[in-house]
């Protein structure tokens, strides 16, 4: 009878041991999970932040470093979790140490019902007496590991906050301007300017290169012999990741801007490092990104709002005070903003649908406009982003040839060339 009650007591204690072990292992699992989340979120936040703010070369190095750090931290977390995991055999000793039971539980667990010696009953009774001290909820009062949980919450909050506020970190979208004329280096571009106002796509002008210059690998993706060089995967992957992040958070326009900035920067770096004794390099047909610096306010605001700088005509934007507030934005390069309503004279009465234009296709057209206003006050600083290849000199005025419009087309021509703007001619 006494043996049976002792066996029952031992079984109760064993059940309690299992409960403590389960609770501890659950805590250990949660700890691993939360720490892994915290590690991953922290790493992701750093990657996103660097993708948005750092240069590509920095991002390549930093992203691999972060990946290595995250992997190391994750492996440490997993190893630590494995170390904390309580197997059945180690649970009694762990309970002893945790509850200060001086080996009572471990001895009973190992001897069990075999402890039918002189001191066996006493050992069982001492354990039963102190069982309250190591109840699962008393021994492990916390159901969740608070510190790892807070770390995970904090890291994920930072990460999501970064995603939410990422658009605010975006540079002003630069206008992509296409030009047929070759462009040279823009010396006035600020090296640290990551928010260009305008990106000009044009053929590159002739550049100075030396034969022995390793920087003849000037264009990405080309070797000295002109053979394509595959970008290493260690560099390609982070760049691809960075582009994706920027695309998702800022949109493709910002990505194009960023790419243009970097290409321009790398090209200028090569130019700076080039030694003397160079020779001219033949211009090629490749499109080359050029970056124009953001003009000083208030024109900058106009540019961001898709003002004249985004017209797609390749002309410099915002550096002509006479054009501010024109509002039309459809004029040709060097043209005025108004059209003479009597450009073609009085309408003829004849209606002949088979008549032809007297105006040759190559005829030059001179648009009358108000022209630039005379400057007042101190002369503004020279616009550093002036594109000499696009507007090297003002166009020579030429008379507009008056032509005879067939009567049949007069109404149509008037309608086409009618000036609908608010500005007076």
């Amino acid at each position, binding site marked *: 009878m006494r043996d049976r009650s002792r066996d029952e007591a031992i079984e109760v204690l064993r059940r309690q041991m299992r409960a403590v072990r389960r609770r501890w292992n659950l805590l250990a699992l949660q700890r691993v999970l939360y720490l892994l989340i915290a590690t991953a979120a922290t790493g992701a936040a750093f990657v996103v932040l660097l993708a948005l703010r750092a240069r590509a070369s920095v991002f390549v190095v930093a992203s691999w470093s972060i990946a290595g750090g995250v992997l190391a931290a994750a492996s440490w977390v997993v190893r630590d979790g494995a170390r904390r995991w309580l197997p059945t055999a180690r649970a009694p000793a762990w309970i002893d140490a945790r509850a200060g039971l*001086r080996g*009572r539980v*471990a001895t009973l667990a190992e*001897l069990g019902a075999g402890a039918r010696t002189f001191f066996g*009953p006493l050992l069982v009774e*001492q354990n039963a007496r102190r069982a309250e001290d190591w109840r699962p909820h008393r021994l492990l009062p916390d159901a969740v590991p608070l510190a790892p949980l807070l770390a995970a919450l904090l890291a994920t909050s930072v990460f999501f906050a970064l995603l939410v506020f990422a658009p605010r970190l975006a540079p002003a979208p630069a206008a992509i301007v296409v030009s047929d004329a070759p462009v040279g280096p823009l010396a006035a571009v600020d090296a640290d300017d990551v928010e260009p106002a305008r990106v000009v796509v044009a053929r590159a002008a002739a550049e100075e290169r030396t034969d022995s210059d390793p920087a003849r690998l000037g264009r990405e993706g080309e070797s000295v012999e002109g053979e394509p060089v595959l970008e290493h995967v260690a560099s390609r992957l982070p760049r691809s990741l960075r582009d994706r992040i920027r695309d998702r958070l800022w949109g493709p326009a910002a990505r194009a801007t960023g790419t243009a900035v970097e290409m321009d920067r790398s090209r200028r770096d090569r130019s700076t490092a080039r030694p003397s004794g160079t020779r001219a390099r033949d211009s090629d047909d490749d499109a080359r990104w050029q970056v124009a610096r953001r003009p000083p306010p208030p024109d900058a605001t106009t540019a961001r709002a898709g003002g004249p700088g985004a017209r797609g005509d390749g002309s410099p934007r915002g550096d002509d005070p006479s054009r501010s507030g024109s509002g039309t934005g459809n004029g040709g390069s060097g043209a005025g903003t108004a059209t003479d309503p009597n450009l073609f004279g009085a309408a003829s009465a004849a209606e002949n649908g088979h008549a032809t234009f007297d105006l040759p296709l190559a005829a030059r057209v001179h648009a009358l406009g108000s022209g630039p206003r005379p400057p007042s006050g101190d002369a503004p600083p020279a616009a550093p982003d002036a594109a000499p290849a696009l507007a090297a000199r003002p166009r020579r005025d030429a008379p507009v040839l008056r032509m005879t419009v067939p009567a049949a087309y007069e109404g149509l021509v008037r309608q086409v060339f009618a000036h609908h703007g608010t500005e007076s001619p």
Partner: protein
Amino acid sequence: MTPAVAEAAIRDFHDTFAAVRREVGKVVVGHAPAIDVILTAFFAGGHVLIEGVPGIGKTLIVRSLAEALNLSFNRIQFTVDLMPADITGTRVINEGADGRREFHFVPGPVFAHVLLADEINRATPKTQSALLEAMAEQQVTVAGTSHVLAPPFFVLATLNPIEMEGTYQLPEAQLDRFLVKVVLAYPSQAELERILSSTTTAELPVVSPVLARETAPERVEALRRLVRQVLVAPHVDRYVATLVRRTVPASGETDEALARYVTYGSSPRGGQALLLCAKVLALLDGRPHVTFEDVDAMALPALRHRLVMNFAADAAGVDSAHVIERVLAAAGRLRA
């Protein structure tokens, strides 16, 4: 057996131990840890080897212990010319009233409950070995006849570490038969002052017997049996075995830095001694089972004299205590 009875037995053991300890402490100033180890070895059923300079209180400890336990006490001063028969006893011819002569065994000083073998290393190995049988088997054989020693039998031998001239190193076999070895340190300033004041007055402290003379041997034997009842879990057995094996270079488990200093490690008897002493500590702590801490506390006195160090250790100043401390530190990581 009910828990209450077991608890009462533990309490009785604890009280007896404490009472003996208190009585010995009346006359022996200082050396508290050494006295505890000696008493532990006594209740564990082993013998003690004490190493200390002359005049430090070795004999006083043993005598007061015998007086406190109310057991018979004998002392043998070992010298070079001491013969085995001087220890074990000898046969003499007795002539009876009828004129018949017959051999009669006269017991030697070994026939006592508590035996002090003072400066045991001064006797020849032959004489020293006369104690071997008595210590190991609790009996002596004289002229082919075995004479059983009345339990409890407790040998407390002393060694003088500074007078090595004309001494004989104790053989390893005999050293192994001592359960523990205690090194008595020189008393501190305060202890020395107390020794001077308490031993030079007219009224010397007197040890009062803790046990009744008639029942003392049985009581001591009962307490010794109680010690052996203490529970030892398999994980503690494993720990002790690990400790012992780590002192043996041939086992391959010894730290390489230590293995080059140790010629021979502890015998299995060292493990037994360690566990028995740990059981006593468990009872003193009111526990029916042994813990790692009990084992660790007794590792040094139980193992230090069983390690045979080599010349490299002497040259490097490494002693057995250093080796055991390193072994404990390494084994401690295993038990975590």
